[in-house]
């Protein structure tokens, strides 16, 4: 009852015509800018957040929440339509979402993404309201040893990601790992593979890698075919998902939400790996795994749900412990601080109207997102009927703008072009970019945490098995490995 009372307080604070207008403006602006490829939520919020300086606290937060969700969803839109991921999480959506678009099913893909995100957002908001503090404490149980074991498990499970040749998949993970370690090493402070170029000291940015690998490489290989063929088959079969689509997407959405909500609480690495993790899970338990990578609706619903649930629960460490889990959260924290809202364990007691107002505004933000985007689906899909000779230069132009806007440095644009060439070579060799991206994201995290765990244990490797949570992940890793290797081994034996 207390919970309902609190929620009522929150909605009472947030639900005014003026606040709804701010939220709607935030969602619209966020979507508009987030749709630009390479411009993820972080850049969008940073660009728009001075607008909120002059607003009172509640409308300011509500508008920021709207911008945040809008930008997040805008990124998914370009992933599906033109194979352009705006951030780590939406890179996974590219795999099946873009294939759906090519089959003329961009409408259902976009609608599924919006609805799955909305469902996950609602559950995430509810989780914050119900169990925020408990989940916050749970995040503190994860030390360097636990992260190491978790990353190891994710990397082993990633073998499932690959479509064809397992050896090629492994090679891609390693290439990704090599790209990931460029820049200053966290543990020693030494710059690696930077070749004395100052721009490489901070490593190669995610947007540079993802945009080059997915979008640029895709465009180059499309242009290769002589006749200017249409990338998208002319017929667009319905804008909204069919009953069968909804049935197919329902459970993956629920599972994606659960996985995303768990990972989102972990500061730093959580949101990034949640969509990879849930994609692997869906592919593993699917009756026909070969459909993945060829436009499976589950491959859109699950990661989109995970990504939004994680984005939601990422608020938990910030609100309850005062710790920003990601760079985007750090910016939100700064925005709240500037509005005079001190987050931390006391915020719920000291300023309940603000805390619950924020929770309510999150829900309103998610809701308005669906309201705004479902009617827009038709418009986005129309965009695809633009002839390719007009479409591809615009995509390339937006890629350049997106990459340039992160640091205002042309170097990132050149680097993206180089990665694009690499991506094209990989397409020719029939190697997939997804495992590379996974290696790029997870490899450096694994190394960082492994070395940190050993540093803290003063070099004692048993630490991974003596800490209970870490031991559980280690055992799970071994099990996954056995389950994956066994069928192959059995097949080998039968053959001999």
């Amino acid at each position, binding site marked *: 009852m207390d919970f309902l009372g609190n929620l009522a307080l929150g909605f009472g604070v947030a639900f005014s015509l003026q606040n709804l207008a701010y939220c709607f403006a935030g969602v619209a602006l966020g979507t508009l800018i987030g749709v630009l490829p390479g411009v993820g939520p*972080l*850049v969008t*919020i*940073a*660009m728009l957040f*001075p607008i909120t300086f002059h607003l009172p606290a509640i409308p300011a937060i509500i508008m920021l929440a709207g911008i945040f969700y809008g930008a997040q969803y805008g990124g998914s839109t370009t992933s599906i339509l033109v194979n352009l991921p705006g951030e780590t999480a939406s890179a996974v959506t590219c795999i099946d979402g873009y294939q759906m678009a090519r089959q003329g099913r961009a409408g259902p893909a976009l609608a599924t993404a919006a609805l799955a995100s909305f469902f996950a957002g609602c559950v995430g908001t509810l989780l914050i309201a119900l169990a925020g503090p408990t989940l916050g404490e749970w*995040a*503190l*149980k*994860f*030390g*360097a040893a636990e992260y190491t074991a978790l990353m190891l498990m994710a990397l082993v499970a990633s073998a499932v990601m690959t479509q064809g040749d397992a050896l090629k998949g492994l090679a891609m993970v390693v290439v990704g790992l090599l790209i990931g370690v460029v820049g*200053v090493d*966290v*543990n*020693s*402070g*030494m*710059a690696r593979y*930077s070749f*004395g170029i*100052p*721009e490489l*000291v*901070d490593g190669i940015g995610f947007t540079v890698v993802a945009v080059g690998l997915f979008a640029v490489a895709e465009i180059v290989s499309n242009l290769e075919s002589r006749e200017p063929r249409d990338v998208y088959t002319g017929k667009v079969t319905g804008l909204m998902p069919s009953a069968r689509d909804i049935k197919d997407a329902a459970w993956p959405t629920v599972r994606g939400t659960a996985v995303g909500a768990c990972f989102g609480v972990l*500061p*730093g690495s959580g949101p990034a790996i949640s969509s990879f993790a849930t994609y692997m899970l869906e592919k593993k338990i699917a009756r026909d795994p070969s459909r993945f990578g060829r436009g499976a609706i589950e491959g859109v619903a699950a990661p989109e749900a995970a990504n939004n649930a994680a984005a939601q629960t990422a608020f938990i*460490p910030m609100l309850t*412990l*005062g*710790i*920003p*889990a*990601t*760079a*985007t*959260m*750090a*910016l939100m924290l*700064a925005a709240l*601080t*500037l509005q*005079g809202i*001190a*987050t*931390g*364990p*006391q915020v719920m007691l000291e300023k309940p109207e603000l805390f619950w107002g924020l929770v309510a505004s999150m829900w309103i933000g998610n809701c308005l997102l669906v309201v705004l985007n479902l009617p827009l689906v038709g418009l986005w899909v129309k965009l695809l009927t633009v002839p390719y000779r007009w479409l591809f230069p615009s995509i390339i132009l937006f890629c350049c703008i997106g990459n340039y806007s*992160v*640091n*205002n*440095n042309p170097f990132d644009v050149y680097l993206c072009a180089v990665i694009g060439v690499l991506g094209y070579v990989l397409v020719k060799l029939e190697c997939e970019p997804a495992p590379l991206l996974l290696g790029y994201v997870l490899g450096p995290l694994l190394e*960082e945490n492994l070395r*940190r765990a050993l*540093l*803290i244990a003063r070099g004692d490797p048993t630490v991974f098995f003596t800490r209970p949570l870490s031991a559980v992940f280690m055992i799970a890793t071994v099990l996954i490995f056995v389950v994956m290797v066994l069928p192959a081994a059995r097949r080998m034996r039968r053959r001999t």
Partner: protein
Amino acid sequence: MQVFSVTRLLALVLLLGTAQAALAQAPYPAKPVRFIIGFPPGGTNDIVGRLVAPKLSEFLGQQVVVENRGGANTAIASEMFVRMPPDGYTIMMNAPGHATNPSLLKLNFDSVNDFAFITLLAESQNLLVVHPSLPVRSVKELIALSKKRPGDINYGSSGIGTTVHLSAELFQFMTGIKWVHIPYKGGGPGLVALLSGEVSLYFGNVPTVIRQARDGKLRAIATTGAKRTSAAPDIPTVAEAGVPGYEVSTFYGMSAPAKTPRTIIDRLHRDTVRALNAPDVRERLQGLGADPVGNTPEQYTLFMKNEIAKWAKVIKAAGIKGE
């Protein structure tokens, strides 16, 4: 006809020439000013810059446009910046990285002579906090315990070469004790590690750790500034509590490229100080844990020289290497 067009051309050239001369003599500032910030959007530096810029625009009568160029702890922005024409239309924000980079990276510019320092915008400090499981309540107790258990206490940081890291290195350097450094990628993960007890010690920026200390999740020991911070006047400084001369400042400054005319520097200085004194700017800066400063170009130049010399000594003694 031809003669006529030549005269016309001549007249046009003359006219253009005078127009150009008039523009050159137009009082500064005649066009918008670029304000370079050496970090991607979203960090404290970016926020401080974006707080000051609109107020400065008001006083200058020209738009001050914030431009982010992140990378290598401001070194990438500086490298571009020192090649800009010294006409007052490009200014830059300096951060502690400006003082530590000369000792950590190979730079293609001179961190003192290539800059005309205008004023220190604001200063904030770090707060030494410990996990409650570490049985110390003061700087003296911490030193005593560290001497009893050399190389046993872990301290966290937000990365190598950050003020969080260097505060601890300076502390060890001045007291002769030995801790183990566990670097994290950014302040968020570093703070989590401290709250969970993975590391026992952390020199966090005041606003990021003060709440947890007030809530009893962490124990505040001392602040790193020369004076007590207005955000927590009850907490002593490290210098007061037993390490005289200890001082670490996280600063935000403003500079122009070297050889910028003195009149322009003075104009920028005057209007920046006015912007810093505006009540809403002042209030928002303090909300971020930063105290507005606004000292003279001479004071700021001396400050920067001292900072560079201090960190060169500490970084060398601690054996920290960059490239």
